[in-house]
């Protein structure tokens, strides 16, 4: 009964390949996010969707394309993978509410580009 689940947990691939990471939340939240955590543990927001609509798109190479088929799903497709894309990618969700949004995170996808 995982609240935010993402697959796969580990992804090892060659430079130049295309890969996808899937995320699903069963919390009924309106907003979903992708974050990237580098080797120094810095966590950087990449994208945010609210009810399937893109609302945040940070300075991310256009090789990264998020897709939200419905508000419970937010997938991340990465084209032409580069060595620098190696990181842990976290999906998260939150409910719109006054006073602050608490994020619920998935367990992460560790991407290694060789």
């Amino acid at each position: 009964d995982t609240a935010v689940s993402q697959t796969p947990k580990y992804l090892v691939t060659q430079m130049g390949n295309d890969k996808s990471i899937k995320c699903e939340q069963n919390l009924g939240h309106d907003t979903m996010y992708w974050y990237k955590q580098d080797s120094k543990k810095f966590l950087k927001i990449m994208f945010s969707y609210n009810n399937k609509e893109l609302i945040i798109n940070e300075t991310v190479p256009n090789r990264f394309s998020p897709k939200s088929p419905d508000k419970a799903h937010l997938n991340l497709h990465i084209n032409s993978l580069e060595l620098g894309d190696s990181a842990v990618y976290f999906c998260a969700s939150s409910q719109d509410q006054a006073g602050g949004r608490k994020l619920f995170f998935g367990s992460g996808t560790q991407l290694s580009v060789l």
Partner: protein
Amino acid sequence: SQQGEEDPQALSIQEGENATMNCSYKTSINNLQWYRQNSGRGLVHLILIRSNEREKHSGRLRVTLDTSKKSSSLLITASRAADTASYFCATPYSSASKIIFGSGTRLSIRP
């Protein structure tokens, strides 16, 4: 850009001692959150403090917020081995839905 900076970057204490970590941020906020990340896991929300609150408690956690200094602190009392983790502060930045994280404090509890 990083909104929050945490201090110290790493902290090692004896089990049973108290652990204090600090977060400074740059812009005005209406709330600040703290999260914990165990090794190899996702972040878990610990506590949210609103800008009109100065202090908040949750179990062994105590969070303070000083909006005049743009800083917050997280105190964990009577630390346990299970508290070993990285701790991050998080704030909204330019919009409520853009939540950005500090650099984190790695806390190690020695038995």
